[in-house]
């Protein structure tokens, strides 16, 4: 009985740790947006400088190939940095601090339950759901941008080599389809996870009302 209680409690605390990570994910969305927007600003600035340089210095004395290549890598580099930044933030979340308390068995489990702030847990789960959803969308948009840049470059090469011009709307749609196909597992995982978080919220609400009604001595 005590072992079951400890294992259930461990499961529950692991779920709460996950919620804590997703809350950090939502908090990191601001940083993610900042990094992506800053990257766009830098990329557009370089693009404008290249255009001005071509216009006022002549095409033959305009930006060098190195600057052109650098320009192509700014946006992908920004997105990769943003994704890694968010991951780093999530990894820095302290989890498993409850493990020592749980080694005490049933009294430890009850002590943990009594130390929980239920309202903050409920709001945490709601934020976690939102963060998980928003990050999924932001990631797909960022990967869409990345794929579009790659396909635009490829279509440019195709146009030069094979003289086949590809409409940019087709390129954008094609990039979106590729990203959705490649992210289908991630999307499914997110959908399931949001469902699980919903379920956890309802179960905890029920458990909290039961727990409040009972008296435990730790």
């Amino acid at each position, binding site marked *: 009985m005590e072992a079951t209680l400890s294992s259930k409690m461990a499961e529950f605390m692991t779920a709460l740790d996950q919620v804590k990570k997703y809350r950090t994910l939502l908090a990191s969305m*601001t940083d993610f947006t*900042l990094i992506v*927007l800053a990257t766009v600003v830098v990329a557009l600035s370089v693009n404008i400088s290249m*255009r001005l340089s071509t*216009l006022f210095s002549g*095409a033959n004395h305009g930006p060098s190939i190195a600057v052109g290549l650098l320009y192509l890598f700014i946006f992908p580099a920004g997105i990769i940095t943003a994704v890694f930044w968010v991951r780093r933030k999530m990894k820095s979340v302290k989890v498993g601090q409850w493990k020592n308390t749980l080694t005490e068995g049933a009294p430890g489990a009850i002590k943990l339950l009594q130390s929980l702030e239920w309202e903050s847990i409920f709001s945490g789960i709601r934020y976690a759901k939102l963060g998980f959803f928003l990050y999924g969308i932001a990631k797909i948009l960022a990967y869409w941008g990345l794929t579009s840049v790659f396909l635009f470059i490829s279509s440019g090469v195709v146009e030069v080599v094979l003289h086949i011009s590809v409409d940019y709307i087709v390129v954008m749609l094609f990039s979106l389809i590729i990203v959705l196909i490649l992210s289908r597992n991630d999307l499914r995982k997110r959908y399931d996870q949001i469902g699980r978080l919903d379920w956890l919220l309802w179960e905890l609400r029920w458990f909290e009302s039961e727990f409040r009604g009972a008296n435990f001595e730790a």
Partner: protein
Amino acid sequence: MKKIWLIFVLAVIIVAQVTFMSSFYSTSTHSYVSGTSAVVVSKMKYAYASTVIHIMRSPFSSPLTLIFSNGTQQEITDSSYTIELFLPRTGDFVGTYASETIISTTPNSPTDSADSLPRITLSSKHPVDVDVVQSIPSNFLSWHGNPNYGYYDRIDVFWFEIQGEANIFITVSGMAI
């Protein structure tokens, strides 16, 4: 809260950058010419235009002669010759951007009906233009000093003649502000 403001500022900068980028234009053309032809580069007075003209001549054909609008002649014996041309901004925008005024003219021609002559089509959405005209009449250059169209207070035109056989690649980058 500071980060939200930073996001707002970055978004405003992006909007400004995209708006500024919409003032850049580019166009290009490629043509094979023989006999007497002309290259005509035109732009709205409020636009800048930078043009690169690559002239590729077969090494087996006779030399090319370029005749510029001021009468200067240049003989080209190399197989590849490049002309870079910068047309500065010479006037302000006249009219409104909302009502798209398209200027379509055959510059300096005595009549409007000369369909084979260079057709300049400029508008606020297309403020730079380039055209290669084949088989121009012998008095083409003489029209230069005698513009008979009212559009000349709104557009700048630069042209030169090419006598001979060549492939011409022209790229024009422009900015209208």
